[in-house]
């Protein structure tokens, strides 16, 4: 053990030494400021946006717990906290280097382990923090799809693997200068704020988990027909949705990674419009079916619109954002019924919101991008889709990226959950599931001074 530790320390030392020699670093920030006197506005903009994205963790926690039963609320809080804990540590140690380090043949990054050596630099730390809050978001999406039945240790391992491999590698391909960003179609595969990198990845890993876990007790009747398992608080679900909606104003506009890109105004408007359109479409569609104003589905629709507009938000006009949102709202409703009809139990609709609409968001860039804005700046290459005379080139790049993302996330997700299942079993015992996970797994009921119905 000691030998291993010593070896590890030596490796870290050597890496840091190599890094120190290779690059100039600026841990204090004075040199950066001298070279670029307008840097502070960018730093403040990016950090404030990153803080907003961090706050989305609270949004996910509230949406998920609101849509699930009171007997699992402690467990959901535990999972939504621990995934960011694990993401922070693992992304610092390895994930960031794999994602944003120096590119190796378009596949993964190779520098920047432990934020050490040349990484000890204000600019790199800024980049790290921004990428970290996104990695945390990707990890936390899954907890909704596997809610109310996944063992806590399985969730710990899953969070580590997402922050170490699944998220950073795909992220490198799109945002770290990897092969998808260099596709010879359109401007390469583009994903402005992460419909694919964050949401499709999280959503499809969640689908893998939900499929391998199987449905919760009581989700399907003896005849196999799906039943509703009402969540314990629409109030918390709505609060969570508002927090996410608010956080998205950091998620999308902050992805310019610069306050000097005044396109942030367009991005903020598009983000909001898609959320509104998604909520409206889902609400009206369910009303047409059941003659009830279904708030739960409206909240899902709102999030679906946000997920979908995340990729195209910087490249489309307002009307297109509305159309993208409307389609997202319809897709989320159809998808919820689709997966239920196939026996997949996704307690909070994470697959329908993030996986399906993440893919839709990627594709929509190839259709609606209007050619007025480039890759995070106003210069060429501009991103232009089918409806603006860009031909099918960008659409092809988007389809390749989306297909890769689905295969990658779903494939690795299935392998990950299957291996854990064979190793120690990922599902809690039937007794624990019926009691709720709060007391058997954590010893703490979420609402000890309230009478809660445990069904």
């Amino acid at each position: 053990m000691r030998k291993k530790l010593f070896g590890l320390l030596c490796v870290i030392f050597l890496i840091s030494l190599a890094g120190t020699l290779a690059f100039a670093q600026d841990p204090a920030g004075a040199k950066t400021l001298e070279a670029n006197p307008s840097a502070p506005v960018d730093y403040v903009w990016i950090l404030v946006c990153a803080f907003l994205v961090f706050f989305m963790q609270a949004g996910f926690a509230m949406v998920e717990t609101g849509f699930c039963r009171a007997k699992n609320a402690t467990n959901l809080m535990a999972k939504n906290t621990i995934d960011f804990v694990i993401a922070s540590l693992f992304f610092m140690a390895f994930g960031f280097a794999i994602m944003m380090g120096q590119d190796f043949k378009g596949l993964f990054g190779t520098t920047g382990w432990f934020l050490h050596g040349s990484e000890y630099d204000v600019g790199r730390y800024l980049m790290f923090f921004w990428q970290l809050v996104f990695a945390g978001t990707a990890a936390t999406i899954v907890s909704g799809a596997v809610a109310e039945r996944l063992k806590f240790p399985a969730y710990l391992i899953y969070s580590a693997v997402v922050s170490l491999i699944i998220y950073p590698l795909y992220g490198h391909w799109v945002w770290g200068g990897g092969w998808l960003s260099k596709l010879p179609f359109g401007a390469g595969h583009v994903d402005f704020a992460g419909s694919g990198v964050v949401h499709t990845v999280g959503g499809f890993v969640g689908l893998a988990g939900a499929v391998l876990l199987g449905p919760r007790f009581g989700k399907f009747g003896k005849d196999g027909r799906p039943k509703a398992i009402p969540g314990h608080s629409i109030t918390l679900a709505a609060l969570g949705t508002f927090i996410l909606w608010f956080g998205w104003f950091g998620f999308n506009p902050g992805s310019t990674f610069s306050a000097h890109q005044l396109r942030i105004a367009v991005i903020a408007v598009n983000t909001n419009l898609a959320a509104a359109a998604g909520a409206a479409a889902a609400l009206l569609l369910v009303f047409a079916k059941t003659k009830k104003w279904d708030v739960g589905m409206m909240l899902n629709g709102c999030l679906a619109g946000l997920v979908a507009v995340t990729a195209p938000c910087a490249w489309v006009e307002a009307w297109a954002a509305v159309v993208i949102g409307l389609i997202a709202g319809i897709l989320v409703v159809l998808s919820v019924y689709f997966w239920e009809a196939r026996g997949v139990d996704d307690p909070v609709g994470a697959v329908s919101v993030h996986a399906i609409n993440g893919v839709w968001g990627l594709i929509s860039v190839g259709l609606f991008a209007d050619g007025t804005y480039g890759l995070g700046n106003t210069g060429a290459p501009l991103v232009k889709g089918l409806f603006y005379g860009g031909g099918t080139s960008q659409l092809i790049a988007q389809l390749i990226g989306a297909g890769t993302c689905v295969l990658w996330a779903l494939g690795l997700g299935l392998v990950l959950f299957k291996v854990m299942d064979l190793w120690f079993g990922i599902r809690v015992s039937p007794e624990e599931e019926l009691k709720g996970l709060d007391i058997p797994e954590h010893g703490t009921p979420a609402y000890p001074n309230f009478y809660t119905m445990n069904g």
Partner: protein
Amino acid sequence: MKKIEAVIRVEKLDDVMDTLEKLGYPGMTVTRVEGHGRQKGLVEQFRGREFKVELLPKVKIEIIAHEKDVDKIVEGIYRTSRTGEIGDGKIFVYPVDNAMRIRTGEKGDSAL
């Protein structure tokens, strides 16, 4: 001494408490209960899927009253809590053997 037990609509509780106070019975025990009668619950909806709620929330009021007051109390609860719709609830009357006020040790009618 009689015990009057009324299972009524949750939203009628305040009105019924007023009525009982006017009749000289400010004291009572109220329990939040669940159940269903012949209507057998109702249909609710969650994230686009309807489901049946078999047990509906009601409140149960228990009052111990002097024999002579029983009829007017039952009448009072009936008048106040009735809507004429399904789910108005039921009133039961039982005999009570004895009662004791714990603070003073009084027994029987004077304990009420």
